[in-house]
């Protein structure tokens, strides 16, 4: 017991100091007021939270939820099919495929976004191809738009879905597929009526794994969406680094955490029923 304290104590103290205390502080700040010069004035009230329900903020929340939901659904769908193909590939190929999926996942996000940008940049291959095909386009709209954001989000978060789903397929009983085949089910029917129900738990888990980081994503919409798309991540970052309205930024992030907890609970209920 004494050795436990001696070995684990430092890490415990570290996490209390750099996670617990800062999170508590954010909660506290979210009830404070913005000072005249951008500092924090410690007069407590719920004013910041009522600002969350203003039409502008609600629109941002709605847009962020939509993007996170879209990304998570697409990632889980594509991830499920890819994981299925990976798990049934020959045993020699499996580790290679796993490595190929994991490598971009561990690659710096900025590099990946830069790579996407270099495809659509003025001297990149896409504008070149479009010109070659005689398709007219607006070069400025091409380098920053919501399609690009969607592509960036899905390709960045896809491994979050593929890797756990692959793990689930490793434990999946493939004789079920065989049985369904023998009974005359086509491949789509097997997918929809055998695989999806059997992997219900991991599917919901993968959805949450993508949804959580997506809701607060800052870099991808910022670099690929241009100034047009305002999302929760940009809103929070702006309050802290530009507008210097920390209390409101803190309230937005507490609200965001609330939304995430709510989503988690909702999925848990979905998992239990039937």
């Amino acid at each position, binding site marked *: 017991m004494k050795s436990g304290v001696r070995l684990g104590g430092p890490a415990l103290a570290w996490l209390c100091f750099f996670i617990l205390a800062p999170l508590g502080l954010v909660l506290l700040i979210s009830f404070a007021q913005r000072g005249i010069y951008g500092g924090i004035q410690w007069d407590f009230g719920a004013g910041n939270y009522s600002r969350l329900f203003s039409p502008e903020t609600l629109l941002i929340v709605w847009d962020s939820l939509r993007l996170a939901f879209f990304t998570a659904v697409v990632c889980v769908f594509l991830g499920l099919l890819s994981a299925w193909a990976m798990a049934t590939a020959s045993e020699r190929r499996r580790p290679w495929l796993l490595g190929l999926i994991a490598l971009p996942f561990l690659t710096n996000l900025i590099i990946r976004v830069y790579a996407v940008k270099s495809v659509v940049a003025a001297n990149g291959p896409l504008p070149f191809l479009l010109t070659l095909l005689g398709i007219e386009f607006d070069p400025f709209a091409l380098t920053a738009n919501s399609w690009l954001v969607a592509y960036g989000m899905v390709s960045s978060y896809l491994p979050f879905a593929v890797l756990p789903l692959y793990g*689930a397929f490793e434990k999946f009983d493939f004789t079920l597929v065989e049985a369904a085949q023998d009974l005359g089910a086509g491949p789509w029917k097997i997918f929809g009526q055998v695989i999806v129900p059997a992997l219900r*738990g991991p599917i919901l888990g993968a959805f949450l794994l993508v949804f959580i*980081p997506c809701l607060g994503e800052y870099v991808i919409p910022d670099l690929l969406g241009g100034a047009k798309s305002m999302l929760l991540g940009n809103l929070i970052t702006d309050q802290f680094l530009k507008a210097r309205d920390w209390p409101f930024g803190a309230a937005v992030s507490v609200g965001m955490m609330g939304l995430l907890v709510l989503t988690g609970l909702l999925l848990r209920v979905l998992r239990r029923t039937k």
Partner: protein
Amino acid sequence: MNERRRVKAPWFARAVLILVLLALYGPLLVLVAGSFLESTATGLVVTGRWFIEVFADTVLGGALLNSLIVAFCSAVCATVLGTGAAIALHRGPFPGRQVLRGLSFVSLALPEIVFALALLSWFFLLHWHLSLVTVIAAHITFSLSYVILTVSARLSTMDQSLEDAARDLGAGEWHLLRRVILPLLKPSLIAAFLLSFLLSFDDFLITFFVNGVGRDTLPIKLYTSMKMGLTPKLNALATLMWLGSALLIILAFRSPGFRDVLKAGEDKPGENE
């Protein structure tokens, strides 16, 4: 587990996998290609001059140095703290055990941006001047849970009788740790160190919030320069960074300590068995 036979996935699943790999690697290939090409009056020519320009740039050299300092210091500290925590958690109850477990889980599940702004506010309240030190502290914090995870995986497969034997032979606490436990843990310590190094070297958002003025790391430099526009030189920089971290990833994956983590994941009783 059911290695006997697996029915091949239908064509559309395999097609999706190929498309996914293309979508992941296509842009990266364009990025790499762009760093070797120069457009001249006669067309595109292959060149190495962008790489030479990157190496000649002292500002980038400074950013690389900052990145390496931060990654090394935070990986060392996180490995030491996390290993202690993993051994303590493995040994059984002590006051604060549940809190330690809970906090290491929270730090894994917390959205990056919330963690970043929480630390920024905390440093502000403490009147800590933002510098590489604050960046290192932040990186230690997010690496810690990954270290605990990696080392715990190894501990759970370790033979308890070795520890008992050493104790019976009269080994003291410190002796036991240095001569028995740590040598046995060595592969996972290396894996944990590499993982922390990588996480720190790649981090953007948290560093963006808590770094001091003028002490940019490489990802921050790439982000700010990219806002001004893409240049072949930046392509070359991004290519080098990608190759560097890819090398590190392969190293980490090939280390035996990492295999324990994967195995620990597989051995867990499945939900669909």
